[in-house]
């Protein structure tokens, strides 16, 4: 087991290195750098001005060198200038005395770089945004996992029954509704003061505010409540829910046809007791892995929903970083998301082995 985890960690590290290198390479292609120079400097720069801007800021070194510097294994670039105050370097601000300049600064030294869009250290930006998305994800999981499991178990306990048919149709419908579709529909139906349900409800006096829910989650960043936060949470959960529910249903129907369930029924155990005490535990092994593997997929939903509802979290950060080619921010964002993907994969594998005693890793 220990060896298995070690090997998986090794592969994870390799994967993360490869992926960050790909991101690094793509963001450091010359047209992207040119765009960066023009947005940072000025849009009417000549080609020579762009080249000298990039040269003095170390962007034109070979990609591998830059990657090494970013990792912190190679010494950071220094562009000497005649006046010592204008000497630029990767690891120090202009005007730092020579003896205070660190040679290396990168991930290994805990330095994630400086964001060119937000004008602040990347580490800090990513952490604040991650906290906001963490809040969103927490509520998403709180809503999605229980409801998906309930739907799946109810559908799977009597295969082919009316309840099963209705719930399965519901799960298919939710998997066919991407977030940008359901979000748009929810906003139009529930959060518009002119259309949908809200004007009706307001007219009847059932709701005090103008709309049933708020179509923008910006205020939820500070103070989240049901009114401003439910729609984004619901939108993300709905898309992920259908898949988990279908997997739970499949696993539940398989368990319900097992021999020991038949034995229990023949012995006269109550149906509710069979479902809750005998079937449920075994039926929840498969959904566990599915839920863990679904978490990286939620990231897509997070990006879409944060854009749609204007909630400035990690997904919004990704969009901002990518749209402005903010290289170091983008790298940090991709490192975080790659780690999320790989760690959830690892947890799902390990958890599966623990939950299912029939599987042993040799």
């Amino acid at each position, binding site marked *: 087991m220990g060896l298995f985890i070690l090997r998986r960690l090794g*592969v994870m590290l390799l*994967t993360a290195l*490869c*992926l960050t290198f*790909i*991101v690094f390479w*793509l*963001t450091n*292609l*010359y*047209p*992207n750098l*040119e*765009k960066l120079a023009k947005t940072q400097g000025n849009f009417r720069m000549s080609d020579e001005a762009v080249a000298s801007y990039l040269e003095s800021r170390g962007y034109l070194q070979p990609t591998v060198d830059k990657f090494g510097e970013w990792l912190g294994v190679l010494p950071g670039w220094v562009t000497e200038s005649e006046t010592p105050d204008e000497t630029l370097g990767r690891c120090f601000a202009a005007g730092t005395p020579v003896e205070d300049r660190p040679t290396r600064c990168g991930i290994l030294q805990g330095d994630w770089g400086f964001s060119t869009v937000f004008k602040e250290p990347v580490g800090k930006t990513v952490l604040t945004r991650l906290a906001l998305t963490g809040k969103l994800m927490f509520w998403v999981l709180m809503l999605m996992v229980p409801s998906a499991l309930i739907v799946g178990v109810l559908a799977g306990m*009597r295969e082919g*029954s*009316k*309840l099963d048919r*209705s719930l399965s149709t519901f799960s*298919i*419908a939710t*998997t*066919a*509704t*991407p977030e*940008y*579709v359901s979000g*748009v*529909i929810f*906003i*139009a139906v529930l*959060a*518009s*003061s*002119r*259309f*949908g349900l809200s004007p009706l409800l307001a007219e009847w006096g059932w709701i005090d505010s103008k*709309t049933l829910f708020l*179509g923008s989650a910006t205020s939820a960043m500070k103070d989240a409540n049901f009114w401003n936060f439910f729609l984004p949470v619901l939108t993300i959960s709905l898309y992920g829910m259908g898949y988990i529910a279908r997997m739970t249903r499949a696993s539940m129907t398989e368990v319900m046809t097992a021999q020991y369930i038949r034995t229990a029924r023949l012995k006269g155990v109550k149906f509710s007791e069979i479902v809750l005490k005998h079937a449920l535990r075994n039926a929840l092994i498969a959904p566990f892995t599915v839920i863990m593997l679904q978490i*990286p997929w939620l*990231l*897509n939903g997070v*990006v*879409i929903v944060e*854009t*749609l509802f204007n909630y400035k979290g990690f*997904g919004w950060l*990704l*969009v901002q970083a*990518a*749209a402005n*080619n903010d290289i170091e921010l983008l790298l940090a*964002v*991709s490192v975080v*998301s*790659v780690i999320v*993907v*790989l760690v959830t*994969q690892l947890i799902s594998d390990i958890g599966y082995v623990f939950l299912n005693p029939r599987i042993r890793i040799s």
Partner: protein
Amino acid sequence: MEQLTWTGSLAGLNIIFLGLCVMLALAVAMQIVVSFLPASDAQEINPDGTVARRGGLAGGLNRAVILLFALLILVVLIYIVAGAFMGPQAGIFGGMSQQMLPVWIALILTFAVSIHFKRRLGFYGKLFDSTVGMIGFAIVMFWVFTGVFGGLFDLLVTHDSLSQTSGMKNKLPGTPLRSPDEGEYPWFLLGGDNLARDVFSRLIKGSWVVVQIAPLATLFAFMVGITLGLPAGYYGGRLDTILSFLANLILAFPVILLFYLLVTPEIVLTGIPNYMAVFLFIFPLIFLAVLLNSRYYTQPSFRTPLLIVVLGIVGWLYLSLVSTNGAIVATDSYRIPGLPGMIDLFDIDPGVLVVFVSVVFVNSPTVFRIVRGLALDIKTRDYVAAAQTRGEGPWYIMLWEILPNARGPLIVDFCLRIGYTTILLGTLGFFGLGLESESPDWGSTINAGRRLLSLYPHAAIAPALALLSLVLGLNLLADGLREESLRD
């Protein structure tokens, strides 16, 4: 001209329609409740000594649901048929139904022919034994016909999808034009968007974008996945390790991040999409070559001309696909010459190419994993051992023994994957990546409409519902196919 209502002179039917909907919902809810009660199969002994079994409450409800559902379908059909004849007199739905007349005819023909010959149509014919599959197929074919008729032949649409009409900015569905020209359609059936363009026409034009790109991109992803997945599963070993690592590498990438990195004008400038196109599009060529060669290599006199003809045609298509303006890759600093413009069959817009390539790139690792898993499973079967004993080559076994036996799950996944690709295309449009901003595709339209969502929702709702229905149709179709393929 006056403002159209949704159903016009058929408004009398609305109350029936709503009533039926409510009753159906109630009946289904009651059915669910009743299904928790123990079944009471009441048996009744008739005076003549026979035993009749009564359905009891559950049976009665079941019949009621079927009846109500049939009535509901009937009412919907009345809306459509009457609308097709009465046109805008029957409101917005009538107007749309009349515009869609060619689609209805094509759908009816498809279904009539398919159901009549279903016993002779193999796997496709079996689809018509499953209700869910038929509903899904109908929805999918509806959009396919809409795309083909509307996008390719310019039927169905009421206005030009790009031109703006004065005074129609953000107008509600059914608004008449201020001063329609002679012969111009006098209404905006689904209203106008924030640039005063007709939402209905854009919806139809947008379906063509999806119908063109999604199945083709999925097909290419399958070619890549199959060509790499079969040997990975069959040979195993180091090849499998390397390919699986690469597939997992791509899968570990968040899709949206990958899109944001790949689908930008700057990346198009570097020529990377062209290199990817050259790499990804060669797989169908390899697949066909190996497929035919492994089957006929014992008859060289037949194989050689066959390969020359097939590879000639496919190779020509391939070269036309990857070369634009006589070059495969053309950047500012260098240029790799390709097929000269004279014999180049078609050029692809660089924006569309990059979208296409990235969608194929994102999808193929998943297909690879599925095919690899299936190959691992099937290679232990007896017929594979028999073929090995016969002395068949490995590629023959992979492509002519393993692949046909994996077709059931692959076809089902193909349908699901087209749906997923549609969602991905919508995502790209939603973030304004790839296709130009006035493109009528659904994702871009939703993106354009979402800014004014709470004031004028119709511009975003129409494409959202369209996308929802197409993906739902594909999911239902896949479900029907799965049901039928399990029955074998």
